């Protein structure tokens, strides 16, 4: 039995209503733990004053420089003692999840037992970077908890100017749109940079995210420095049985209004069967006895819309791989940036293919470590030096797929033009 609860009139109001309540969960823990009684006390104070009361500090585990988020209370009595002494230290361990965030219950129960013993008993599945966040341990208990998690085969994630924990979608494990083995690429890349994850020494954070298709369920394009997004090069595959089944259920109005008219490049057409074109780049499938759809795949940007609407009837092609986009980030400091295309397409089927992604990632991080300013993200660095200089460093050839349009101003020195043309022609001839 824990000590008596503090009055929490504000938090109590978050126990009503149908959605699961974290306050009810905290109160359950508080029945056994003075630690959580005082956590609720401090949180109630924040609700009352509308101020936060945690400050950072230096807490870690032996051998690592990161992965623990230290929190010390700033809510003090006049004599400098903590107002809620049992929750004066409330550190979080960031632990990297398996790709796709799959678990068995034995593992989850072990997490619970360890965290009940050494921590607050509060676990977040998952933080915004993708970590399992074991929230709330004293400085003394951080090492004990980590040792037990680590013996289970789990490892700390990134914090500070480090390679950060990554996320990958459910992907090949359960999704028909998956264009590469997300989990394999995720582990191959991340596990190459364990030193950069555990010992923060980069100019700023570097995030990788892995999405199996352009639906980008991991939001990789806007929140990772290196977004690996699945795509394909060949024609969209079709299945006539499923196409007809779809059409029976949805009809011509939905086919026209929800699919044809929403195709961003207008390459998706519905036609009478006799008027369907044949050709190397055409996908077509009958939806009824009279009508079929026709896609000229050369004009398709692999946006996923028709494949999403008519899943199974249409599917990504077989020549699958990924597009790699670099430089996504949120506002600070220069404003939000989307990642931009650096590798339009790479295969990720074989070990050698995946090794090429690892190699690219390594070269990016080496260049970033050398060239980024302190607290500058990859996207900001590329904005500062220009994409061409970055591509030179990465030894990646320029490609018109990297731009929305060529430049719209003449403010560039072009005295190397002939040399560049010669290089491009030489490469074309060698190919």
């Amino acid at each position, binding site marked *: 039995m824990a000590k008596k609860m503090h009055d929490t009139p504000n938090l109590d*109001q*978050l126990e009503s209503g*149908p*959605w*699961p*309540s974290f306050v009810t*969960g905290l109160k359950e823990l508080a029945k056994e733990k003075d630690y959580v009684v005082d956590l609720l006390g401090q949180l109630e104070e924040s609700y009352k004053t509308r101020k*936060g009361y945690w*400050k950072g*500090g*230096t*807490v*870690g585990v*032996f*051998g690592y*420089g990161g992965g623990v988020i230290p929190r010390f209370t700033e809510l003090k009595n006049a004599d400098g003692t903590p107002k809620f002494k049992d929750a004066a230290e409330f550190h979080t361990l960031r632990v990297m*999840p*398996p790709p796709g*965030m*799959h*678990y*068995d*219950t034995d593992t989850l*129960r072990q997490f*619970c*037992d360890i965290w009940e013993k050494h921590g607050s008993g*509060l676990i977040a*599945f998952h*933080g915004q970077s993708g970590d399992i966040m074991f*929230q709330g341990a004293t400085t003394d208990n951080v090492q004990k908890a*980590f040792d037990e998690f680590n013996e289970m*085969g*789990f490892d700390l994630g990134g*914090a*500070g100017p480090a390679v950060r924990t990554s996320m990958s979608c*459910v992907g090949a494990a*359960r999704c*028909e749109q*998956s264009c590469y083995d997300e989990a394999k690429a995720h*582990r191959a890349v*991340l*596990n190459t940079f364990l030193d950069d994850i555990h010992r923060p020494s980069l100019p700023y954070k570097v995030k990788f995210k892995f999405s199996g298709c352009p639906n980008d369920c991991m*939001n*990789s*394009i*806007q929140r990772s420095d290196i977004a690996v*997004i699945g795509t394909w090069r060949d024609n969209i595959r079709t*299945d006539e049985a499923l196409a007809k089944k779809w059409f029976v259920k949805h009809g011509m109005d939905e086919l026209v209004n929800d699919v044809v008219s929403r195709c*961003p490049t207008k390459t998706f057409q519905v036609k009478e069967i006799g008027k369907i074109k044949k050709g190397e780049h055409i996908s077509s499938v009958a939806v009824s006895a009279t009508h079929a759809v026709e896609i000229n795949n050369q004009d398709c940007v692999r946006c996923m*819309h028709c494949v999403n609407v008519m*899943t*199974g*009837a249409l*599917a990504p092609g077989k020549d699958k791989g990924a597009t790699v986009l670099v430089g996504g980030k*949120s*506002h*600070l*400091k220069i404003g939000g940036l*989307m990642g931009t295309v650096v590798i339009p397409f790479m295969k990720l089927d074989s070990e050698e293919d995946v090794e090429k992604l690892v190699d690219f990632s390594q070269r990016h991080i080496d260049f970033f470590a050398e060239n980024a300013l*302190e607290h500058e993200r990859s996207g900001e660095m590329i904005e500062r030096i220009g994409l061409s200089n970055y591509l030179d460093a990465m030894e990646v050839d320029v490609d018109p797929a990297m731009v929305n349009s060529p430049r719209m101003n003449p403010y560039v020195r072009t005295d190397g033009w002939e040399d560049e043309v010669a290089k491009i022609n030489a490469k074309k001839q060698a190919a």
Partner: protein
Amino acid sequence: MNQAVQAAAPVAKRKPKETGVPDNKKYLHPTLAKNYGNWKYHDRPRPGVLHHVSHSGDEVWSVRAGTARQMDVYTIRKLCDIADKFAESRVRFTIRSNIEFIVSDEKKVAPLIAELEKNGFPVGGTGNSVTMIAHTQGWLHCDIPGTDASGVVKSLMDELYDEFRREEMPNRVHLSTSCCEINCGGQADLAIIVQHTKPPVINHDLVANVCERPTVVARCPVAAIRPAMVNGKPSLEIDEAKCMCCGACYPPCPPMQINDPENSKLAIWVGGKNSNARGKPTFMKMVASGLPNNAPRWPEVAEVVKNILHVYKEDARPWERMADWIDRIGWPRFFEKTGLPFTKYLIDDWRGSRANLNASTHIRF
């Protein structure tokens, strides 16, 4: 600021095993493991349930339920009990902290749903629903929060509970909340983000001891911070006319307090989309601000959120995400239909902002 390599540690300490990202194969539901990379299509028999069919003919039903994200061990064990009983002792979590139970027998779906709902876990969050809000740490754990996160989410999801359990929106609706302008919650169809309205209040007694001053100067996006001697102590001063109150100086220099119970407001942003489906991915746009940070239930925020979602639900066509819908109807109509005031503060003046101005005569009357 929060980590340092521990030097001179006693030899007896346990060395970490740098095992990195664990393999997920042993955690996969057996039918997922068997059909890895071989799925054919899926459909949704009802809200909260995904039905996937493999090229092998195998089928799985995934039942998705909402959680509080921050869970106590008792709740997690309860979820484990349910997984042991129905789902071959496997679960997975989505990016929005929903939990999924996977069953290979359709007969288990209805009893599993009943068991989840009996235990207070709403089943939904699939397809055209309003799914769980991606969120941050807030007052519970963050060192720089302008507001709470879990509480805002609990309050809003109580209000959006029915929309989570139905699939009645034009397309999926992703929400996020962020307790400061750094926006850890990320891009979403609709996002709630703290918006400070006053420059930081500086405790000049502490700056010299706590802050690395050149670092703080360098962090300011508008170069409004400069070193100064105040009361005989080295400190920093702010050009308050330049300051746009982003709070970027606060993390590296906590004596520059940006959070203010009255003047830290909440803003609403709409139209973020990460997917490449139809149009290219989009950043969200600010459409409302000045909402009070009114814990514990933030009713003013909930009202604006529900209003925007209601108008979107009524007006958007099938498959239009928030951004697609606004693309079709245009911003003037968006403000007209939602009744939100379009103030001068919503005209972008940050770098690259001319691209956000209407350089055409395309105007809907």
